[in-house]
């Protein structure tokens, strides 16, 4: 008669084989592994800058529209208390094919683009990185973008 390894407990009903116990331990370890993965995933969402890239691209595009439509000269400092802008690389550029003026902004990962309406005569492109705030200066219908020191 084949003998099975059995763990003895006080009650006969609670007697389990070692194999069953190992399986239970493995299931508990798998559950723990799944929980740890979920926590890591949630933390990664918290650190993800995708939403911030989308927000900043739209916000700065609307700012550019506002500055172009404002009469006269304008000097504007763009900063955020709750966001570290030095992580973001800002580009004032345009699409190659149809020359649509574009704000491109990105931290780690994919940069996000958004269009804006500029003065046709203002063709300057800018790239600003590592700045805690940006400076937008409008003079004679043209906007200059720089780091705000």
């Amino acid at each position: 008669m084949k003998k099975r390894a059995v763990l003895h407990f006080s009650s006969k009903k609670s007697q389990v084989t070692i194999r069953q116990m190992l399986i239970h331990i493995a299931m508990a370890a798998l559950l723990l592994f799944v929980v740890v993965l979920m926590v890591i995933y949630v933390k990664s969402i918290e650190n993800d800058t995708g939403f911030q890239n989308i927000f900043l691209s739209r916000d700065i595009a609307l700012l550019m529209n506002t500055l172009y439509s404002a009469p006269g000269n304008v000097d504007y400092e763009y900063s955020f208390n709750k966001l570290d802008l030095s992580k973001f690389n800002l580009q004032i550029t345009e699409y190659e094919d149809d020359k649509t003026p574009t704000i491109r902004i990105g931290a780690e990962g994919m940069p996000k683009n958004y269009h804006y309406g500029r003065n046709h005569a203002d063709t300057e492109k800018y790239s600003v990185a590592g700045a805690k705030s940006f400076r937008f200066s409008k003079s004679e219908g043209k906007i200059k973008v720089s780091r705000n020191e």
Partner: protein
Amino acid sequence: MDDILNFFRIIFAIFVFYSITLVANAAIKEKIDVFETESRLLTHSLLLSKDISHVDDEIKRQYIGTIDLEKFSSEEFKSSILNSIYYGSVNSEASAKLELEDIESGDVYTTYYNEPLYKEKKVLVEAKLIGEGAARGLSTNFYVLIKDKDNIKKGVLTVDAVLPN
């Protein structure tokens, strides 16, 4: 039997984890709707534009809210306003219809910002379609003055901005 049950338990655990990630992804808002702000900006950009406003010849002062009827009615306005609010060689981002009504005489003058896109997308706005490929519109009225040669008259400028989604 136990092995089969354990196998299904593992499958179930994977399914639960995948479902949680799907729900989390669905809850994360990645689309920010800026239509209303963008369309109001376009409307005010048109109103504040030198291409539409009366500009004094001597002192070069722009009178915002005073529409130069000669500029408004000219064919050059359509190309000059496209250069003032430039969205690329093929503008597929914004369009508007401008209607200027002389309150005293009842005359109505009409011009466009990006007329081809406006006529293409206005149909979609009226059909109240939503989603990608559709469009939304915002109509705004302004009380303005109309400078018709040496006469100043009261008028209403209606800007109907149409922006694709």
